[in-house]
Structure formats: C-alpha cells, structure tokens
C-alpha cells in the first residue's frame, strides 16, 4: 500500500505509540483488502464504551487504555490513548441507566459503562449513544469520506446521504479516530458505488411495514451487492428509508442502494448504473411479499404477547409522536411491556412535546442509548415479543430465544394494549 510521508511518520511513532499502533492496523487491514492507499476522514462513528465480558477482563488487566488497545487497535502493548484526532462518536450502547429496574443489568456492567464514558469523553469521543447518529446531528455530506460502523447507519450514510463509507468495525474505527485515516477501498471508490442489480416492486411500497418487508427481500436477493430499486414506490420519509436500509443490511449485507429520483447519486436509473448495462429486474410481487411476511413471522406460535418493541433503528421524533398519538388515553395490558427505543437527544425533545408522558401514562417506556438486541435483555420472563422492525424480528429470536411477531405499528400497539397478537398481512 502506498503511504504518504505523513502516514509513514505516524506509523513510525512521531505522534505516539497509540497512533503508530492505529497506523499499523490500518496498513494490515488495507493490504488485506487490497487497498492502494488510505484516505482522510474527519467523521468516525464507532463503539468503545459498551461493556462486554472480554472488555471487562481487559479493563481489569490494564484499564481502558488496555481495552482500547486490544479491541479498538488490535494491539497487545500497554499504551496511552490520546485525544481522538478527528471528530468521533460512540454509537449505541449496551444499555442505558433508564432501563434500571425494567431489566437486569449487572451493577458491574453499569459501573463499567459509566467509567468508559468518562474515559472516552475526555478523549474527545462524543457519546451520541445511538445507532442513528444522522438523527442527532452527525450528518455527513454528499461525497464525504467517513468511517462508520453499524450496518443500518452505513447503508443510510452511503445511500440516503451520499457519503462514502465501508462497513467498518470496532478496530478500524478505533484506528480511524486516532489517525483520521481509513483504507480507500470499496464504497470510497466512485466506480464501486454503481448499482449492480435492479429490484422492481410490483406491489405498492407505501408504508413503514411495506418498506421494511421490501428491504428484507432486497437484501435476501442481492446479498452484499448494490441494488437499484424501482417500481411502485411511494415517496419515502426518513423513517421509511431507515427501516428499508436496515432490513437490506440484515437479510443481506447491503451497504449501498440507489432509489432513482430519491437518493442523491441516482437522479435516474441510468445514472445509478453510470450509463453501463442495466440488468433485468428481479420482481417483488405478491408472492415474494407473502414469503417475506411468512419468514419474519415464522418464529411465533403463541399469540400471547409479553413485550412490544418499537424503534429499531432508533425511533425518530415523528415515530415517537405517532406512538404517543396511538396510545393517548389507553392503558397497556397488565402482562405486556412496551419499550420505545430512541436516541437520548430525541427523548429530550419527546419529553418537551409531552410524548414521553403519554407513553408513560399508558404504561410504556421511552428508553435510550440501546436496544434489546444490543443489551441482550428484554423484560424479565419475555417469551413472545412483537415489533414493527424487520431487523429486530430477524435478530431477537436468535439472540434472546424468544418468539417474534412482525407487523404494523397499529398491530403492535394493539398487542401492547390487548396482550394478544392479532396481526396479519393485509392485501
């Protein structure tokens, strides 16, 4: 890999051992990828502070510097961690303290996360604590090279914002924060951003659930490739695109999609392919739609719902408002819990608008920083949950060993209020 003089002196230790270790990792990583060089970035979103058993052990051995060295830099030496060189934010956490009492977090984990937040805040990491940094002010611009992890954030940044990032990990973002560098490879390279597949919706994609199901099909169909999606698509909003992208990244490994007329790099279908040959579309019709619905609902038998989970990826303020509106004047079923996951910054606004109060008065909770898939925790005794998120319906049965129902927001609120799942695919 070609290094600039600046990069070479960083590798050789001119900016300290941690920066040298970060450069060493980036070089090994870039060479393994087959990258020709690194590229500058001033926007990193990674994970440092959420507790794990491995991290707890490392922290005991040598403090947060040790944990960062091993996990975020793949380095076994004892090194000091300086301030981040470029703006860097923490993605979602393992949990937030607002869930204390609702689910069991070990005290040691709560303390561990608190001490990590203090340590990394002092090193310039912005504790946004959300899987959707773009919802709370970290909004890269078109063409900007960023180093993000979190698959749903990556696909949003690439596709909806037109920023350029690969699906980075804890180690590559840890190294990027200290160096302002990331391998110039994959989605950073313009020709690698052109569409490879066309998926055409022959059924109307016109609400949150339909966007999620269509996304799940697109991911299953193209895997890691770059789809352009056309057909019967209504104008999506932020929440629709967030849900669609998250579903494509969950069932496949999509990091970039094009939606002609909507996403910035695809004013037309022809533009999405850069003028190259456009392949025959794969059709998403009633049969495919039914398959997605059945797949996401193949993990439930009991219709007694203990737990309703909304907000994955983290709910926008508008989504929280809709939930509050549906719950106004109603009460949750005695045996059913409702969690609405949102960034802490948006919860502050939900508080101000009275949405939190309405949801809380109904018996629900507006929670921040995390989600059940990250914290691996649901309300105690949960056997069956319902969600409007294709991603959570996919993941939670495996992670928590619980049954899942996937449906619309209205069906989820109905389940929260009645304790019963009465959803079904509408024509």
């Amino acid at each position, binding site marked *: 890999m070609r290094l600039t003089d600046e990069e070479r002196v960083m590798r050789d230790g001119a900016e300290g051992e941690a920066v040298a270790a970060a450069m060493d990792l980036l070089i090994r990583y870039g060479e393994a990828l087959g990258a020709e060089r690194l590229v500058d970035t001033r926007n990193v979103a990674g994970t440092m502070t959420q507790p794990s058993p491995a991290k707890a052990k490392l922290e005991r051995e040598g403090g947060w510097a040790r944990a960062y060295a091993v996990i975020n830099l793949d380095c076994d030496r004892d090194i000091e961690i300086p301030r981040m060189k470029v703006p860097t934010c923490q993605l979602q956490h393992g949990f937030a303290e607002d869930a204390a009492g609702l689910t069991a977090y070990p005290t040691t984990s709560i303390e561990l996360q608190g001490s990590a937040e203090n340590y990394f805040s002092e090193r310039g990491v912005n504790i946004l604590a959300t899987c959707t940094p773009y919802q709370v002010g970290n909004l890269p611009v078109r063409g900007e090279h960023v180093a993000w992890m*979190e*698959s749903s954030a990556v696909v949003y940044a690439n596709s909806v914002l037109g920023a350029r990032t*690969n699906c980075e990990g*804890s180690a590559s973002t840890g190294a990027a924060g200290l160096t302002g560098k990331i391998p110039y*490879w994959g989605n950073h390279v313009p020709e690698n951003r052109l569409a490879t597949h066309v998926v055409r919706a022959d059924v109307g994609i016109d609400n949150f659930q339909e966007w999620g199901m269509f996304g799940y099909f697109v991911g299953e169909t193209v895997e890691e490739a770059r789809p352009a999606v056309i057909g019967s698509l209504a104008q999506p909003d932020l929440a629709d695109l967030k849900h669609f992208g998250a579903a494509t*990244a969950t069932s496949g*490994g999509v990091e970039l999609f094009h939606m002609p007329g909507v996403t910035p790099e695809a004013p037309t279908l022809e533009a999405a392919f850069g003028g190259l040959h456009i392949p025959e579309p794969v059709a998403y019709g009633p049969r495919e739609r039914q398959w997605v619905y059945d797949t996401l609902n193949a993990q439930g038998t009991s219709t007694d719902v203990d737990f309703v989970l909304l907000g994955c990826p983290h709910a926008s303020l508008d989504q929280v408002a809709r939930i509050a509106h549906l719950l106004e004047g109603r009460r949750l079923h005695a045996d059913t819990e409702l969690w609405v996951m949102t960034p802490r910054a948006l919860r502050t606004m939900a508080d101000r608008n009275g949405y939190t109060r309405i949801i809380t008065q109904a018996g629900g909770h507006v929670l921040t920083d995390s989600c059940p898939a990250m914290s691996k925790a649901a309300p105690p005794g949960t056997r069956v949950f319902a969600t409007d998120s294709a991603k959570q319906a996919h993941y939670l049965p495996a992670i928590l060993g619980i049954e899942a129902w996937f449906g619309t927001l209205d069906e989820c609120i109905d389940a929260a209020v009645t304790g019963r799942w009465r959803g079904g695919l509408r024509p």
Partner: protein
Amino acid sequence: MIELRGRGIVPGVVEAEALVTRDAISGFGGIDVATGTVIEPRHELFGVCFTGKVLVFPGAKGSSGWSGFFQSTRLMGTAPAAMVFRVITTKAVLGAIVTRVPTVVEAMPDPLETIRTGDRVRVDGDTGLITILDRGRQQAGFTE
C-alpha cells in the same frame, strides 16, 4: 493431496479439520462467542461449533459487529483455527485480522466446491496455500 492457491491475508500456518458452509455467516446475532457456535436459526450450521476448525465460508453478512464478535472468540478461547472465504468485505477481512488466525481468501479451485467438512486441511496464511491433507472419514465411502 489437493492444493488450492489464494491470497494470504493473515499470516501463520495451521492444520485442522475443516467446517464448510455455503451460507454467509452473521457475527452479531449469528454466533455465540462464549461457545463458538452458530446460533442463527435459518443457518445450515445452526448449533454447530467452529472452535478449532478451519472455517470455510462464502463471506460475512449482517452487522458491522462481525469483526468484534469474531475478535471476542479469540479473547474467549472459542475462535476457529483458520478462516477461508471468498467474498472480500471489510467485515470479514477486519474480522480475520483481529481474530488473528491464518486466513486465505480468493483461493482457486473454489474452496466451497473442493473442501468438505471433516477434511484435514493445512492453511498457510503466509503463502496463501491451502492443502487438503486427508479426506474426512464421513466422505471416505464416496471417494474411494
């Protein structure tokens, strides 16, 4: 002995039994790092442990937590002995680096067609050479 030639991306040499899957692997939500087991219900390796095996798979899918989860298998002592995969993505490549097991990518002939579960395999991450040393017992009846 059958040889496959690819590109070594993590150095080191190891000999171990192969575990082959045609399904892409999810890290987050797809494996249990404490036991080194695939936990995705729809995966063909559901419930199967990869610890100490040469994991032969098409590539990574799902969350960017992939690398961190496989790194955790190293820290928890449940990592595969080596990795062989085809599709180069940041998730899988970074995952292999931080798992620190010999890794070969883009090998020919196609490892998914050539290597079978149970085969004894040598993976040389320095040279990119994969060698099938012995066919596994379960396939012996078909090959002889």
